[in-house]
């Protein structure tokens, strides 16, 4: 049923639990697993130029620090097909777009992330994805 699962990771406790759930699902359902980390960026032109210069270095740094261990962990749990990427931009938008472009049929994410807006029971990214993703969304507490 869920052949391609995407887990959105941002370093939060919620995301760590979401990762555990996604790996468990992927092994039980024999699904492919995509792990993405979204790096948000302010939309100033200065910053965009900056990224143009050192973009690749930043990307590979984040990938090495965060994604590579996650990929390894997923594989050690028995997930055969593991992939993913570092995404730049507005998290909800980037995750939804990546999911659509890669034929993901289930997005798994923490109910909340690193955001500092207290009082939100459902983080803005989770809320947006639950409404707008092209596929099923699983929010993990």
């Amino acid at each position, binding site marked *: *049923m869920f052949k391609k699962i995407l887990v959105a990771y941002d370093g939060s406790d919620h995301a760590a639990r979401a990762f555990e759930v996604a790996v468990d699902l992927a092994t039980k359902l024999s699904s492919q697993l995509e792990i993405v980390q979204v790096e948000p960026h302010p939309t100033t032109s200065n910053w965009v130029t900056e990224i143009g210069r050192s973009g690749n270095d930043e990307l590979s740094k984040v990938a090495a620090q965060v994604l590579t261990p996650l990929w390894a962990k997923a594989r050690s749990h028995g997930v055969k097909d593991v992939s993913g990427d570092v995404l730049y931009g507005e998290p909800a938008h980037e995750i939804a777009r990546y999911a659509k472009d890669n034929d993901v049929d289930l997005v798994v994410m923490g*109910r909340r992330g690193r955001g500092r807006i207290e009082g939100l029971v*459902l983080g803005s990214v989770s809320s947006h994805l*639950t*409404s707008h*993703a092209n596929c*099923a969304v*699983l929010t993990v*507490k």
Partner: protein
Amino acid sequence: MFKKIVLAYDGSEHAKRAFDAAAELATKFGAALDIVQVVTHQHASEAVAAFARAEHVENPDQIELAKCSANSLAPVAAKAKARGVRSVNIEVLRGDAAREMLDYARSEHADLIVLGRRGLSRVGGLVLGSVSAKIAGEANCAVLTVK
């Protein structure tokens, strides 16, 4: 990981797709599945009237709401069992949809709630039904919304 799955079912197309996901997960995880329908007061009289018509009952007032709703859930439960879900339970609740679902899931120690992104509500333009949104935000456990 998932031992007790609660499916919020309202007969809509979204709910049917949610059922597919819930049944699949229940079989793969060996979980118990509770199929729950919340009947709001608005829909209660419609459901009773429909049941009365179908069963040629003279006096609809005497029909227990629970019975006619259970009639619509029984085939769904049978389908779940046929797919290999080891334990299937149906429950009809009355009241505010989100509140009843949240309380039920909590008291039953559910570790996953499955529901359609939208339901039977006629409020057009909502991409995420109000009930689904509330449940996704306040549940004590993981929530799967199915498109």
